[in-house]
């Protein structure tokens, strides 16, 4: 047998094995959470999503409605704050690459990507929670928005930069103004990349616990008290309930983790289905 052929086969096998090892933990996590969480969701039916958690002494675990409502409110609010801000910042960076503001935004964005998200929670705690004297869903939303901004910005900048210059030139040649070129051409050609960034940022925000510890704090007795009241969130509930010694709360934690997983996957699949790839 040819020596080069043998080396090629050996390396192919090594690469395949390493790839399997690398993705195995992902499948393990999905399988384990499904194994632990799915039966709890099935056993409790619709009330799992509509009830508040039961008391620790109750037989039934109750539901995760406050966590679901809090996650929905805080993720949507954070998205409404972060996406326009970060996308506009990315458009500015691409249009004015040498502007001092662009350099500042890039450095800030990269730094924020690296910062431990608990510090972002502490920042909002100092700026908003301490002065107002209360934990609120809005403070949680702001913390999550700060977590999302660098993700949306980085993916948006990459997507916008990857739009071939020839389309931009053609748009200007048609007499379009800068805003029209951005709106009619650049953003629309880059839409898949922009959507990918938003999907990653939203799932990141949905799964964050640390920034909510000092901001939204958690609330279990009502489903959702309002933007200016403390609120629960799925990861926060999972984090707090899994550490307790109560079986019914631990069951809620596993069911909540499974719900979070389903939300993640559906969000990514929806984003891919809804935003068509632009083919050149």
């Amino acid at each position, binding site marked *: 047998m040819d020596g080069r052929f043998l080396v090629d086969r050996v390396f192919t096998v090594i690469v395949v094995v390493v790839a399997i090892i690398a993705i195995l933990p992902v499948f393990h996590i999905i399988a384990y959470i499904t194994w632990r969480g799915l039966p709890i969701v099935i056993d409790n039916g619709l009330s799992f999503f509509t009830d508040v958690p039961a008391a620790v002494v109750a037989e039934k675990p109750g539901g995760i409605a406050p966590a679901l409502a809090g996650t929905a409110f805080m993720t949507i609010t954070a998205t409404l704050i972060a996406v326009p801000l970060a996308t506009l910042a990315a458009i500015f960076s691409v249009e004015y690459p040498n502007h001092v503001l662009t350099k500042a935004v890039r450095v800030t964005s990269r730094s924020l990507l690296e910062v431990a998200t608990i510090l972002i929670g502490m920042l909002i705690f100092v700026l908003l929670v301490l002065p107002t004297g209360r934990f609120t869903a809005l403070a949680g939303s702001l913390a999550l928005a700060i977590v999302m901004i660098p993700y949306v910005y980085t993916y948006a900048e990459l997507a916008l930069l990857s739009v*071939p210059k*020839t*389309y*931009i*030139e*053609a*748009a*200007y*040649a*048609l*007499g*379009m*103004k800068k805003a*029209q070129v951005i709106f*009619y*051409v650049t953003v*629309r*050609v880059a*839409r898949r990349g922009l959507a990918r960034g938003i999907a990653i940022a939203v799932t990141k925000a949905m799964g964050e616990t640390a920034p909510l510890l000092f901001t939204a704090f958690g609330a279990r007795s009502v489903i959702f008290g309002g933007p200016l009241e403390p609120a629960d969130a799925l990861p926060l509930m999972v984090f707090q309930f899994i550490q307790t010694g109560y079986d019914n709360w631990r069951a809620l934690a596993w069911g909540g983790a499974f719900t979070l997983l389903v939300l993640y996957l559906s969000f990514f699949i929806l984003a891919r289905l809804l935003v068509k790839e*632009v*083919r*050149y």
Partner: protein
Amino acid sequence: MISPAIEVKGLRVRISGKDILKGVDLRVPEATITAIMGPSGSGKTTFLKVLNRLIELVDDVEVSGEVRVYGSNIFDMDVYKVRRLFGMVFQTPNPFPHLSIYDNVAIGAKVNNVARSRKELDEIVRWALEKAMLWDEVKNRLHDPPWRLSGGQQQRLCLARALAMKPRILLLDEPTANIDPVNTAQLEDALRALRRDENITVAIVTHMPHQAIRVSDYIVMFYDGRVVEEGPTGEIAISPREDITRRFLRGEM
């Protein structure tokens, strides 16, 4: 000579400290096809991009001299108004990939408020596609994406997109460099028909002498950032005055 649509005096362009155009003087006659020919790197494309001020998108560029279009100095005009006087077709076909065939043509008309109603827009799209000799090939698939068309069809779609703006002058930058001979012939036929039927002034950049002779009424020879010779195509093709033009026509450079 027929009155000029474009009149250029002492045009100089410097990009990142390098002189690209070194004092260009020329006149592009109205309702004619003028071929701007010359070897690669002679400044033809840069010249075209000065005319519709696309050159201003390039970083670190300095432009001096005078460019008059129908008597008005383009540097005194609003840049978007200048661009709307010209339709432009680029070397590589670049229909917008996110828009359908119909919308690619319609977008120029929409942006420039050429159409006042949907019916009028439909008529303009059809007119532009007919003038680009593409209507018969796409009339039953106007809502297809442009990547379903061949390279030559895509280039004619770009011509239709430019025409839908109802420009007075059409600029083409080596439009047949990336397409096959059949599509090249169709595009050249379309240009001749536009000049004849619509009185559109056409400036086409080409590095192919045969194309310049085939398609144009006037030829301008560029070399090293300067115009070395210009005149009616018949005269230049048969008896060029300059040795550079002669060598270029013989395919020696």
